[in-house]
């Protein structure tokens, strides 16, 4: 008998929901119905509730239709036939709900209205599996495995047909244009030549084009002019400094441990230099991944290659570490956890670490698989230069230990290993103070440390490989069953590599991550590259491809890029080149009101995005336009020279970054100590180095204005820029103004701008408060410096059009 009404409902339901619910209807539901369901019913009738009574769930439309012990709760369109109405009207004693109170007549009437309207319920894309039973969770995992876009194999879709075929320069353009045409939008006009040159220069090298480069590009009218520039930029060493820094964001790179004690990682910079070099040499990305996970276990053809491979594993251990943990076993697990989190998000854009204490709530990762991975990292000992065995001794400062680093070729240990002389806090503080008062760095360019640079590196090595037990709720004191070292089972890979018992398994993990069958690695990196060239990824949540992340706006394009990336030998440079040569990339960033109203977030790419430069590019641009930049990389890092003291204990009052504020090396070489970010980077939203950061914040706060108006660094560079303008051999002010604009903004000044700047200089010179010197040249220099500072302070200086 029960089958009949159920069937009727199943048939009725699609009919009732055939006309999609209107906005008003859904609003009504959200305002009048859902709050009552949540407030009055969910304690006993929801997945999230404590216990489900009468087998009745009211947390989805399906659940209402399915009903409980006494049958379906509602008949859409017929409130009078709905059991739910009987219950809340309280007309049948044994059925009255809620049990201890009565809903107001108005609320009851709302429910009737809602059911009569067909019980519209908004589409819910994700169910919180938290309260679900294990079985439900397992089936939820199965469903996700089948359905979640990012776990599906990468395809190689054919480019779609487009109407405006002439616009498309490549398949990338066809994928973009097809979506635009579907959406009734058209692409923007091409960017003007100078805007494009500036965009390319910053995107590829993080530096502005020089006036000579501008001249050359303007003169080159050949069809391959853009490609010539792109090839030049890709071949420049500045390319690796730019794109290496992008990767250092992902690698949460820093030169100290952060957290409570904040110990200095003296040799982290070797990993920094390795990354920059890898991008410059266009190391195949799969190889780059493998070296960072397991370089020490890979065969090497030379001693130099072996050293580089070792340095690459610094990736795993440059993260934040808490050295107050007293239980050494716990600290090993904490480090392993941090590595898993980083590996998961950096390469796979997946938050695996959530499964440390409980099965993953959103993505199909059970705790057992987390511990399969944990076994790999627990079997790997990290060498950071800090003695873990002495962790927790708050008054001991001799935890720095060269024996806790990995020797490279040519390393000779100190013959008599001197015990640290910084045995007490007082002594160490004193050492710190004298270090800072020392004049040896004053005004210098900090091109190499004073102490000897040893042949040592941070990194990991295998250490007594063994499987680990699942820790119940992540607790070290509650070990459960042992799990074989291995990988997460989704994405599914046929014949995953087997881990030999004598090894940690990092090498096999690297094979698994870079396997041709792994659908994530290539997609994630292709998306990261896209995001750096457009300001937003095709998947906007660049570090999260899981169920809580965003879906791709152009899934086929993403697959096309990933396929191409792998086919091109995982060459990042080729991928970049193929993107920047498209019409899509080369569009103008000009605003269009009508298009903006259709697609305010530019999901369909109807223009290039107007983008704020990153902190490094802003500082480097100031150094470049003022002619002050030192393009030669420094040797090592100031970290080598820092005294034996945790920066978090008494030391934090001193910021080594301030000490080197006079350096004119590129920003990627500034010392990056956790919690002590150099001001010039901090003020413009430097990456949070506690976490994988694929996308930086962009804020617009008054401290940025104060920085460009008042910082001695900016003022010093404005003066230097004035010297450069004055020394350019130009006779008249309008020509000088023009040159200053070219330097700062990569374009000539308009006539209005020339007049405005000239009027400004005159007003400055007439003002006794401004022109304070008796020397006319000094006054003129001050006026010009003020103008140059205004150019560097402007919004245009820090934006790409």
């Amino acid at each position: 008998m029960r089958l009949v009404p159920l069937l009727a409902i199943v048939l009725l339901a699609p009919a009732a929901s055939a006309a999609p619910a209107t906005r008003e209807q859904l609003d009504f539901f959200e305002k009048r119905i859902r709050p009552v369901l949540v407030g009055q019913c969910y304690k006993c009738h929801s997945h999230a509730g404590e216990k489900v009574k009468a087998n009745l769930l009211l947390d989805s439309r399906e659940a209402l239709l399915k009903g409980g012990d006494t049958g379906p709760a509602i008949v859409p369109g017929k409130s009078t036939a709905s059991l739910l109405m009987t219950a809340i009207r309280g007309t049948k004693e044994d059925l009255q709900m809620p049990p201890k109170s009565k809903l107001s007549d108005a609320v009851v009437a709302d429910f009737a209205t809602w059911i009569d309207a067909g019980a519209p319920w908004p589409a819910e894309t994700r169910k919180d599996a938290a309260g679900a039973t294990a079985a439900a969770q397992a089936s939820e995992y199965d469903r996700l495995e089948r359905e979640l876009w990012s776990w599906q194999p990468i395809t190689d879709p054919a480019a779609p047909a487009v109407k405006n075929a002439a616009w498309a320069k490549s398949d990338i353009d066809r994928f973009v244009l097809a979506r635009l045409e579907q959406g009734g939008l058209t692409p923007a006009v091409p960017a003007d030549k100078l805007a494009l040159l500036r965009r390319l220069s910053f995107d590829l090298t993080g530096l502005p084009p020089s006036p000579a480069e501008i001249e050359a590009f303007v003169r080159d009218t050949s069809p391959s002019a853009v490609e010539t520039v792109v090839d030049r930029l890709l071949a420049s060493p500045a390319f690796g400094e730019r794109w290496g820094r992008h990767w250092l964001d992902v690698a949460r790179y820093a030169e100290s441990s952060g957290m409570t004690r904040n110990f200095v990682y003296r040799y982290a910079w070797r990993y920094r230099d390795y990354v920059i070099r890898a991008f410059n040499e266009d190391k195949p990305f799969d190889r780059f991944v493998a070296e960072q996970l397991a370089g020490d276990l890979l065969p090497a053809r030379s001693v130099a290659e072996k050293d580089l491979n070792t340095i690459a594993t610094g990736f795993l251990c440059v993260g934040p570490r808490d050295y107050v943990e007293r239980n050494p076993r716990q600290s090993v697990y904490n480090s392993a956890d941090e590595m898993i989190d980083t590996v998961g998000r950096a390469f796979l854009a997946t938050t695996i670490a959530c499964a440390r204490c409980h099965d993953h709530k959103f993505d199909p990762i059970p705790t057992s698989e987390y511990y399969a991975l944990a076994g790999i990292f627990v079997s790997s000992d990290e060498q950071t230069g800090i003695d873990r065995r002495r962790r927790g001794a708050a008054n001991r400062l001799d935890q720095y230990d060269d024996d806790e680093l990995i020797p490279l070729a040519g390393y000779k240990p100190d013959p008599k290993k001197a015990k640290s002389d910084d045995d007490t806090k007082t002594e160490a503080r004193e050492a710190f103070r004298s270090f800072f008062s020392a004049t040896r760095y004053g005004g210098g360019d900090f091109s190499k440390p004073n102490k000897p640079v040893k042949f040592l590196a941070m990194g990991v090595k295998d250490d007594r490989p063994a499987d680990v037990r699942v820790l119940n709720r992540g607790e070290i004191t509650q070990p459960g069953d042992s799990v074989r070292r291995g990988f997460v089972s989704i994405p599914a890979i046929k014949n995953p590599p087997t881990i030999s018992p004598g090894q940690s398994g990092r090498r096999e993990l690297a094979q698994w991550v870079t396997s041709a069958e792994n659908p994530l690695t290539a997609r994630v990196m292709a998306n990261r590259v896209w995001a750096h060239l457009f300001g937003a990824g095709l998947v906007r949540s660049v570090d999260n491809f899981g169920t809580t992340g965003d879906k791709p706006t152009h899934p086929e394009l993403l697959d096309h890029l990933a396929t191409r990336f792998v086919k091109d030998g995982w060459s990042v440079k080729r991928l970049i080149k193929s993107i920047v040569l498209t019409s899509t990339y080369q569009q103008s960033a000009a605003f269009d009101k009508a298009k903006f109203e259709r697609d305010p977030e530019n999901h369909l790419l109807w223009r290039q995005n107007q983008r704020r430069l990153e902190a490094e590019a802003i500082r480097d641009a100031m150094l470049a336009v003022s002619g002050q930049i030192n393009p030669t990389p420094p040797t090592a890092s100031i970290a080598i020279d820092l005294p034996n003291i945790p920066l978090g204990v008494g030391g934090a009052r001193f910021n080594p970054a301030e000490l080197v504020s006079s350096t004119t090396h590129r920003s990627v070489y500034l010392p990056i100590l956790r919690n002590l970010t150099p001001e010039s980077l901090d003020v413009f939203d430097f990456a949070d180095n506690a976490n994988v950061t694929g996308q930086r914040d962009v804020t617009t706060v008054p401290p940025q204005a104060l920085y460009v108006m008042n910082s001695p660094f900016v003022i010093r560079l404005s003066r230097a820029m004035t010297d450069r303008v004055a020394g350019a051999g130009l006779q008249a002010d309008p020509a000088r103004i023009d040159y200053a604009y070219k330097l700062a903004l990569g374009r000539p000044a308009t006539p209005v701008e020339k007049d405005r700047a000239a009027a400004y200089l005159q007003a400055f010179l007439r003002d006794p408060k401004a022109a304070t010197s008796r020397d006319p040249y000094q006054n003129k220099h001050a006026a010009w410096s003020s103008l140059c500072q205004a150019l560097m302070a402007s919004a245009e200086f820090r934006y790409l059009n």
Partner: protein
Amino acid sequence: MTSSRRSILRTTACGFGYLALADLLTKAHAADVAAEHYESPLAPKQPHFAPKAKRVIFLYMQGAPSHVDTFDYKPALYKADGKSMGGGRSLLAPQWKFNKHGKSGLPISELFPNVARFADDLCIVNSMHTDQPAHPQATILLHTGSSRFVRPSMGSWVCYGLGSQNQNLPGYITIAPQGQGGAQLYGAGFLPAAFEGTPISGSSTGGLPNIAPSAPASVQRRQLDLVQAMNRDTLRRSGDNPQIEGIIESFELGFRMQSAVPTVMDVSKETAATKAMYGIGETATDTFGKQCLMARRFAEAGVRFIELTHGNWDQHQQLKQRHEANATAIDKPIAGLIADLKSRGMLKDTLIVWGGEFGRTPTAQGRDGRDHNNRGFSIWMAGGGVKGGMRHGQTDELGARAEVDKVHIHDFHATLLHLLGMDHERLTYRYAGRDFRLTDVHGNVVKQIIA
């Protein structure tokens, strides 16, 4: 209140009503001219109805303090210590004693002896709950009402709705922000960037870098006018880029802050007794004491929303030692803040909120720790139109989950706006074709706690 950024733009010549006068640069007193024609987006606005509170000081406890050890008294949990709860979990008794305080007899744990002196001013909400069990999502949800999308923070919504009482300071200041979520925690999302929180370093000097002007005011004003003329050109070319608007705004505010901030931050005229009250000068309480004093001074100066963060409450282990150290660091400073606001007659229209992104489990993690608990936790409020000496809502007898009069983060947001005189359903901003709210489609004002 529903006026969109675009309608503001329509009413003025360009951008933020900062008139582009062709001859501006040649005027002798450019600063006066500019000031005359300048219309700040932070200008005070009328609330929907009479407000109980004019400003908010939010004491954010990053990492999630344990409610059963602080403000949610659970006698049954002491007795059930060690009892197995299945799944390898067993209960851990509260690690501190609770005593009754004030006329109201509010039970507060001995972790907060000084705050407890103001029991009759506290409105403790014991039935908080939130959707997210992990720090990043829960922290962002607490601050913005959404854990999945980039949305404006509550301080930004408050400034959008009410403007600020001091045009020479940011309307929303966050002192030493930390917490997983980064700038999103004080971000303006799709609201104009002028409503974004301004982070101020919490270092012991409490200073703001580069606040000293590099040139005399009129000289700098002239330079700024040049920069702004360029910026307006950029804004015109970029159409509606709110970030360019934000830059224009940040220059104006930054310029004005140069004279306002040093005055507000100069604590030299505060008496020794006042400083002592905040615990300034004592090792454990110095940092947070200075930040609390700074918060009072910002509040006094008319800043609308002030957030302070005290970090590292995430005690999966070392609960005993580290909760104690954390509480010691903030107890006296917060008591000092309440006392100081009271004595200045400001507590009645200043809403203080204390709380973390969620709570902690009554079960143990290891021998000396507690796990995350998003199903039940406590926050407290004081001043600003809430009833004192009361507890609202309840968790179950062990403190595991909120049961009676549950208050969700959305309800908290709705209540906060209500106390400030705003209807959370009417405080909307039109973006991408729809009206957005801090509370999305949720939120009920907790009327029971309103005085």
